[in-house]
């Protein structure tokens, strides 16, 4: 895509898409630069007061230990955005890839994959994550893997049901009659027709991964201190909720704006292609 095309595509977006794009772009920039523009070290105890309000020195106040909320938020965004983006990419690539394989592959392969996915999906995701973290520890890499694996089966089911629906359609049967290979049918004939419903799924799945990460920190399984993703920031400061502390309001707002932004953008982008 050339620069001109890109600008035209952005212009063509409805207002909701533009807002989404702005939010997503904002969070990508924060994720990339947050660590460098943070005014304080995210672990430093800089304020004598806990749950302090906004001040010139601490724009977003201080957290439950007197650390700078803004700095922790800037660094936390990096973990949330980065981890979720990587995890959703792994989950969707694996899920859709396996779904296509299952749809066009031999019958036994379909059965095998479906059973494997059923096995994974039928164990409730948070409990599954809990067991894995208890067994293997919670490093960043492992957490990413656990979260992606947790969301592969969901994507697989949706993608497979889309793909199986497509295999019965005339044009796929025509392609098959033409003697096209399975690989070609899957990627060229089927995948493009699955993109739009899949994108809706990706957006939601991204949200779920962000939320699963914070759910895991609720259960005490998140990142290792002093690192903290946005969900952990909400969780660790939840005792400030009663007093309306910025330490909890700001990361909560951050999560909401990130998830809403991603979905607005994806919705708009997929709708824009109506022929």
């Amino acid at each position, binding site marked *: 895509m050339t620069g001109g095309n890109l600008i035209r595509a952005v212009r063509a977006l*409805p207002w*909701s898409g533009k807002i989404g794009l702005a939010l997503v772009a904002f969070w990508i920039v924060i994720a990339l630069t947050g660590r460098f523009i943070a005014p304080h070290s995210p672990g430093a105890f800089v304020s004598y007061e806990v749950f302090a309000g906004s001040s010139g020195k601490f724009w977003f106040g201080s957290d439950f230990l007197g650390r700078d909320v803004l700095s922790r938020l800037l660094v936390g965004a990096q973990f949330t955005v980065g981890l979720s983006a990587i995890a959703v990419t792994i989950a969707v690539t694996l899920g859709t890839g396996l779904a296509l394989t299952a749809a066009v592959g031999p019958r036994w392969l379909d*059965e095998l994959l479906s*059973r*494997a996915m*059923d*096995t994974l*999906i*039928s*164990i*409730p*995701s*948070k*409990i599954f994550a*809990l*067991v*894995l973290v*208890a*067994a*293997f520890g919670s490093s960043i890499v492992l957490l990413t893997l656990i979260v992606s694996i947790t969301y592969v089966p*969901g994507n697989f*089911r*949706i993608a497979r*049901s*889309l793909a*199986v*629906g497509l295999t*019965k359609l005339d044009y796929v049967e025509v392609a098959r009659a033409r003697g096209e290979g399975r690989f070609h049918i899957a990627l060229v004939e089927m995948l493009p027709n699955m993109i*739009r*419903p899949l994108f*809706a*799924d990706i957006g*939601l799945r991204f*949200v*779920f991964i962000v*939320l699963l990460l*914070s*759910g895991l920190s*609720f*259960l005490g399984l998140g990142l290792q201190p002093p690192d903290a993703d946005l*969900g952990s920031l*909400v*969780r660790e400061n*939840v005792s400030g*909720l*009663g007093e309306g502390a910025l330490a909890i309001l700001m990361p*909560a707002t951050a*999560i*909401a704006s990130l*998830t*809403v932004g991603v*979905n*607005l953008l994806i*919705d708009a982008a997929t*709708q824009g292609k*109506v*022929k």
Partner: protein
Amino acid sequence: MSAASTPSLWRGAGRLIGKRIGLALVTLLLVSAVIFTISGLLPGDAAQEVLGQGATPEQVAALRHEMGLDRPAPVRYAEWLGSIVAGDPGQSLVANKPVADIISERLPNTLTLAALAALVSVPFAFLIGIASAVSRGRKLDRGINVLTLSMVALPEFLVATIAVLIFAVELLWLPSITIVPKDPTFAQFARAYAMPVMVLAVGVVAQLGRMIRAAIIAELDRPYVEMARLKGVGPQRLVFRHVLPNAIGPIVNAMALSLSNLFGGAIIVETIFNYPGLASLMVNAVTSRDMPLLQACAMIFCATYLLLVLIADTVAILANPRLRQV
């Protein structure tokens, strides 16, 4: 539906169900093997967890022997498998009670909560899914879109905590923890369940509503819809008679997933509202390394999921003529 196709249809469904039950058993076996393997990797065992911080090695050894943990893992698995096939999930290692007793205390709770949440959320999900699909791109659609997004934009534990602060602590309208008295009146029942059901429903309505919207929109773009529209079929009839039956496959699939999530994924709601359900029981079984109990919970969750998916697939096949010749 033509009379001629009905018998073959039922035969097809029957064959499908029979085959599915066989496959379900295979899946259950796989799940139990996975659970057993992973839980074998967990640090510590039930004897150490029960005895805690100040246990002496001889006490641990004695308790291990009593629990049968001193035998090799494959033997224990085989024994468990043998008894579960005979219909007996065994004795809890920790609670000194049959697993079946512990489960039967919690299962009704989980079923009630999941059923109520489903009852509240499914109609809403259909309503907003259909409404936003038919008004695609218009104000209503965009409004619903932002609404559903903001419903799932915050972590569940935060939504639940905020709800408790408002409705239980500030307004004193609803209880902050879910305790259902024996033989409750309808008012007691409704008050007890209002908040956990609301919190669970928020997520499901948004998720399911969006999936329904996407599935309907995918159908609306098909040529036959255009044809029907040209023939002068009204928008309502179009959606309910033509589009919905064709979109039902992905929709019921999404529903099966949502319901299965409601059933097994209520851990945070169970924690915050202190509701004695199966999810917290399973977490409890993990943390106390109570293998028979853990396995039983996993089997129930897995079986429920498989049942829901089976229903979803059956419905999809019955509704979609193209899929009938399986």
